[in-house]
């Protein structure tokens, strides 16, 4: 029986990261022999079924001195009683059974049955690999797909497991297989629907070989040659052996494909895997200190907990306030081991009915307190939110002086009430981290303060700060409704240059569309327009992704250091950057950091080996995208399914990316970045990258869907813009983000003539630009939404209304390449007005009208604008308004 462990809790299992274990060591037969090879199983660090045996050796159990918590009559002897909350991980062992059998009564029909005996809603996430194809995840023929399944894009099926019978926890799913199918193997992972957790087979897919492939045989023969293959041959290895005998010389893989393997008959298969489901559980533990009724110089400590199973108390005592662990003088309670590290381990006695464990200890009066942690099994330790449990023992007989001495005890017990209180899980974690800081400072000179620990703390601090900032910012709006957020951020920092805002007066031009790669000399063509763009008033141009790429448009990068693309070669790139610089335009490079395409396959046919200067392998790929068999950690964001997603939590990956960005800054001369698909990874990493590469300006593409109800866009898009703002916050404001919210709302406004949508419930602009204008990069179209792709095209014919809005409003407006030329003169007028009136990314908006057919606003009191067919004219008053630009359903005035 082999062991499968639920992955997410243990991001950094050594096995997963160990590069020395090659992929080919992983096929299923290996799993089978694991338990028989103790060294391997312990290497894996998995919790094994054999483990409780060692605990059993520790019996008999502690002699009980108090059967229950002390009864009331003894209260006078009671010195103290404390209750701790114990958070632990409850493990439930279950079995996943995979059976491939011939269907009764059919010669050529087979049935694959996957069942799981753990309670829960289980989903089989599966795909097939054909004999003649290296791909591991392909779509099966439709007749194989069980009813109730969902097809995930073109590579996987999700089939729910159904209860075997009413009221039973065991659930199963069956897949029917035709005996003649060209399918070589079925791969799957399990997902628990409620928690969304993935259950892998040791971090990899489960694999059911239908007939054994040549590749497996090579593995097998290799194993045999080094004779570690165990003697006990079961059905499967026998089968495999037979095959080997029938085909003794392993032919090269490529030759040994479809014509031979698909002819092999399907082989029955049965394998059980152990699954461990881990859930956080809260137990409690009461420690009571009382005077001994037998001996006057002893105190009795009773420990009582409702944690089930074996509980070993790993304990020591302290004699003074330094609380160093000491071993008390014997005698010890029964079932106690003395460990060399100044600690004792005592197995607690099980309470009747399995309701928990308890124990009691007699301690000398000199003992100032008890320190302990709990050991639940070989691999599971429980402490008090990162610290030891400490139970001070106060001796009531002691004099005044000693009372003062106990004062710190009260301090610490208040601390404890925080740590063990019913605080939410995250808060506990934070306090855990806080304790880590304590650890670090006390271990400072012991070289235990690793960078990683420090980084963790710094990350935690930054997260807290971002949270505090967000709430303060929002609540200050509530507090002072007369004073807008925009105001507060305007005054202090107008001329400050930050990569989130540039100089605050930037106007962006997207310097390409979806077709730009076609000519092969785009850099050259765009370079010729540099002067025009400068003259129109743009200050930043965004160039297409520069690297070698699988797709010609550049968004599927392969070798990051190869800067020859369909847009031109590296020399032409440097040239265009130089040209733009000459006319005073800064240049953004489009960098794709979320994913990267591999250049070659690993042995098992997965495209996860990267080429070029950054020759990463599966360790650089996130682990939760089943299709690329990443060996990294779980993704810190959403997955982009078409290519391997990069695991930014790996330090080597970050180092490489930082180095690359700095290279681009220096070698190419880019001034900043447009960051592709930043939904895919945590914004904190972006902050790292930006701090390392020091861009003049950076903007991220955080594009997800707005909220709709019955196909109609919701008026309130706060959740949507909050997600974007959360990302900006995570970058610590070092990057702006495209204001997708504003674009989405403009769609509804213009398509349905609902201009009232342009004012949110607080009479502010409803997009990101209403909440954090300085970080909002407003746009109405880009290469994805428009151009020849048209994934989300701006309402045709209304583009200028869109530009009249974004070019007069705060935020940093971005104009799409195609539009620069379609609407050149109109855009020129708007940009020139923006620059003339010094409208900037933090300008203030006063919304004057937001009605069915007209929206009007005044910006900084210097510019008035309206869009929509309805009527609006600025009031005649102290200001003299003159028309600055005008077009179809829009009009803009300036105050003179």
């Amino acid at each position, binding site marked *: 029986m082999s062991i499968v462990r639920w992955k997410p*809790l*243990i*991001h950094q299992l050594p096995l997963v990261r160990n590069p020395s274990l090659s992929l080919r060591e992983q096929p299923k037969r290996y799993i089978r022999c694991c338990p028989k090879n103790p060294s391997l199983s312990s290497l894996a660090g998995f919790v094994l079924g054999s483990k409780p045996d060692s605990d059993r050796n520790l019996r008999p159990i502690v002699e009980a001195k108090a059967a229950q918590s002390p009864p009331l009559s003894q209260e006078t002897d009671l010195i103290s009683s404390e209750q701790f909350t114990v958070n632990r991980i409850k493990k439930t062992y279950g079995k996943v059974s995979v059976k491939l059998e011939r269907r009764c009564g059919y010669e050529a029909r087979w049935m694959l049955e996957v069942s799981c005996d753990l309670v829960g809603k289980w989903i089989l996430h599966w795909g097939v690999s054909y004999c003649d194809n290296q791909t591991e995840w392909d779509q099966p023929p439709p007749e194989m797909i069980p009813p109730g399944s969902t097809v995930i894009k073109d590579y996987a099926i999700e089939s729910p497991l159904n209860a075997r019978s009413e009221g039973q926890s065991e659930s199963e799913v069956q897949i029917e297989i035709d005996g003649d199918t060209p399918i070589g193997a079925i791969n799957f992972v399990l997902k628990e629907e409620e928690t969304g957790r993935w259950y892998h087979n040791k971090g990899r897919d489960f694999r059911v070989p239908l007939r054994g492939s040549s590749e497996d045989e090579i593995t097998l023969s290799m194993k045999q040659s080094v004779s570690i293959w165990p003697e006990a041959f079961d059905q499967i290895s026998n089968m495999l052996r037979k095959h080997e005998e029938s085909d003794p010389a392993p032919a090269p893989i490529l030759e040994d494909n479809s014509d031979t393997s698909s002819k092999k008959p399907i082989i029955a298969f049965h394998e059980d895997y152990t699954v461990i489901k881990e859930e956080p559980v809260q137990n409690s533990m009461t420690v009571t200190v009382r005077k001994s009724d037998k001996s006057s110089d002893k105190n009795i400590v009773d420990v009582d907990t409702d944690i089930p199973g074996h509980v070993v108390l*790993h304990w020591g005592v302290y004699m003074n*306030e*330094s*609380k*160093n*662990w*000491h071993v008390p003088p014997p005698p010890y309670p029964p079932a106690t081991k003395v460990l060399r*590290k100044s*600690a004792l381990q005592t197995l607690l006695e099980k309470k009747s009915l399995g309701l928990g464990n308890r124990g009691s200890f007699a301690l000398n009066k000199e003992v100032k307190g008890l*320190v302990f*942690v709990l050991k639940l099994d070989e691999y599971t*330790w*429980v*402490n008090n939110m*990162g610290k*030891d449990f400490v139970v001070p023992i106060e001796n009531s007989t002691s004099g005044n*002086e000693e009372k003062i001495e106990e004062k*710190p005890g*009260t*301090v*610490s*017990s*208040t*601390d*404890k009430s*925080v*740590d063990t209180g019913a605080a939410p899980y995250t808060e506990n*974690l934070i306090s*855990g*981290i*806080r*304790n*880590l*800081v*304590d*650890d670090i*400072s*006390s271990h400072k000179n012991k070289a235990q303060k690793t960078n990683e620990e420090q980084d963790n*703390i710094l990350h*935690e*601090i930054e997260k*807290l*700060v*971002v949270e*505090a*900032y967000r*709430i*303060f910012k929002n*609540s*200050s709006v509530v*507090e002072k409704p007369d004073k807008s957020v925009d105001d507060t951020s305007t005054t*202090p*920092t107008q001329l*400050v240059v*930050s990569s989130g805002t540039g100089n605050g007066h930037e106007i962006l031009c997207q310097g390409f569309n979806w077709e730009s790669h076609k000519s092969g000399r785009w850099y050259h063509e765009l370079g010729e327009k540099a002067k025009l763009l400068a003259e129109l008033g743009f200050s930043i141009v965004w160039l297409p992704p520069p690297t070698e790429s699988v797709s010609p448009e550049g968004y599927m990068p392969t070798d990051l250091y190869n800067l020859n693309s369909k847009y031109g070669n590296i020399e032409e790139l440097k040239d265009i950057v130089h040209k733009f610089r000459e006319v005073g335009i800064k240049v953004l490079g489009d960098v794709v950091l979320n994913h990267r395409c591999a250049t070659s396959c690993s042995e098992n046919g997965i495209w996860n080996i990267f080429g070029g200067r950054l020759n990463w392998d599966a360790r650089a790929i996130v682990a939760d995208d089943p299709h690329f068999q990443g060996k990294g950690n779980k993704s810190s964001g959403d997955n982009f399914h078409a290519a391997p997603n990069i695991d930014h939590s790996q330090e080597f990956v970050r180092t490489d990316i930082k180095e690359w960005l700095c290279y681009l800054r220096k070698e190419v001369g880019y001034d900043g970045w447009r960051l592709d698909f930043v939904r895919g990874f945590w914004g904190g990493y972006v902050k790292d990258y930006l701090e390392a590469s020091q861009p003049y300006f950076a903007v991220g593409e955080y594009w997800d869907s707005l909220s709709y109800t019955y196909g109609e866009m919701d008026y309130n898009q706060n959740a949507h813009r909050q997600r974007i703002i959360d990302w900006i916050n995570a970058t*610590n*404001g070092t990057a702006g983000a495209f204001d997708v919210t504003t674009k989405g709302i403009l769609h509804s406004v213009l398509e349905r003539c609902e201009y009232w949508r342009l004012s949110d419930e607080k009479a502010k602009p409803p997009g990101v630009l209403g909440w954090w204008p300085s970080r909002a990069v407003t746009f109405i179209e880009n290469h994805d939404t428009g151009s020849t792709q048209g994934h989300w095209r701006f309402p045709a014919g209304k583009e200028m209304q869109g530009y009249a809005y974004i070019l007069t409003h705060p935020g940093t407006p971005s104009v799409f390449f195609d539009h620069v030329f379609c609407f050149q003169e109109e855009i020129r007028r708007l940009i020139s007005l923006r620059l003339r009136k010094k409208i900037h990314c933090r300008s203030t908006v006063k919304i004057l009208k937001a009605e069915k057919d007209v929206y009007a606003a005044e910006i900084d009191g210097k510019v008035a604008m309206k869009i929509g067919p309805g009527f609006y004219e600025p009031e005649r008053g102290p200001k003299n308004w003159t028309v600055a630009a005008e077009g179809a359903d829009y009009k803009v005035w300036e105050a003179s």
Partner: protein
Amino acid sequence: MEVSLSGPKVVVAKLKDSKVKRLGFSAPGFGYSGSNFVDLRRKCRVNWVGLKAIRAQVAVEKNNAPFRKEKVQSQTPVELLVGLPLDTVSKSNTINHEKAISAGLRALKLLGAYGVELPVFWAVVQPNSPHEFDWSAYLAVADMARCAGLRLRVSLNLNGCHRPNVMLPGWVLQAAETDPDILFKDKTGALHKDCLSFAVDELPVLQGRKPVEVFESLFRSFSSTFKDYFGSTITEITVSLGANGELRYPSFPPTTDSEFAGVGEFQCYDKYTLSQLKQAAESAGNPLWGLGGPHDASKYDESPNNSNFFKDQGGSWNTPYGDFFLSWYSQQLLNHGDRLLSIASNVFGDLPVQLSAKVPLLHHWHEMSSRPAELTAGFYNSAERDGYDAVTEMFAKYNCMMIIPGMDELGSNPESLLHQIKQACEKHGVQVSGENSALVKQGTDNFGKIKENVQAGLKAFTYQRMGADFFSPEHWPLFREFVRGMERSQLDADDLPEGNGGGVSLSADSEAGNNREMQAA
């Protein structure tokens, strides 16, 4: 529990202590009132990093060797505090932006801050009558600080504040409606609605009670309500001695606050102050001097160079009349300060807390011989006369620490004034801690200035103040680097030999448990 890992550290703390002690005994001592605890506490300036300081303090408090006042000296690391938002508790006695503050506290703790400063307003605690107190929201904040493991300096503001708009309690303002002269009044008759006139301190003008009695009952109520927090969480109480929470007259225009950088005006035109002035003039034998303040002083915003009173050459400040008026005016301020400090030290003297009060850094116009901005605020300081000597003496008398804002102010004026005040403090053995005037902005060297001032020997430094701007991406990284920079620069002193190594006995196994938890994050 916090101490469980700190074996070697405590040793360090003690080592350093003994050093401090030696320095301390060689310093000029002075009359000392208060309990042992107050003094013992003073020894815990072991670390800039509050985390460690707490442990050190625990150790130190037990080290019960009696200990006397030590000299303000420059080597010891400084306690870093951050001010909580002025509107932490709303006028309706609820906590504003609680979640943000709680996250902020944790971030500060992780960064290594020693504590936070909590501004308490009279109007919030006693909104309705002199007999009722409502500390609930402040208690909740104190609890948050305790949970975060941070120390608390509580500022008891007996005045109003323009931002946020907290005035005096409603019932006080009602009393002022019937008798406007209990408030400060300027030459034009405009009232300062955020400050009671010092002249009514001992007059039964508040529903038949004297302001000093009301303040005393407020202090007592605070002391009994927060009794569980003193020493462990609340380690310092700052008492406001005048306008804007500082020892000063409200010499700024009634519509603004102390950020006002003009000369200001003398505030002596309410009838109670006028009558005291009249008495003083009569006893000085010059009844005509008692009719009002100087007629030739400049207006709030006017340049003092054009005024007959303040001008450097032949200004009337430097005449017998000038001397009479300024002595009287500044003495009124001192008297008021003395009254309040005496009450405060009486009420809080037995608590294990430090008493402190704020003195403004009125550096504008400090280059003029007449120091006009200081004169109007009540400090009779000039080229020839040290106006801070008497002030500092008063602080020393009550063992009160002096808090000086403006540690971030650049330029020679702040520098020379600060030097003057600090010298006076040194002379009288008064401890100094600092504050900044405003958030430090990008691209300035104000953090550099703060660092310089802090290293020149402050007991503590409070950075003002938490809020949206404080945590903004423009500001926070600067602050973080400032703190970390300070920490690094003190590492040498901090990392003294750790004594007998291996005292840490957390087993490797339970550390593995820690890691596990980290991974789960």
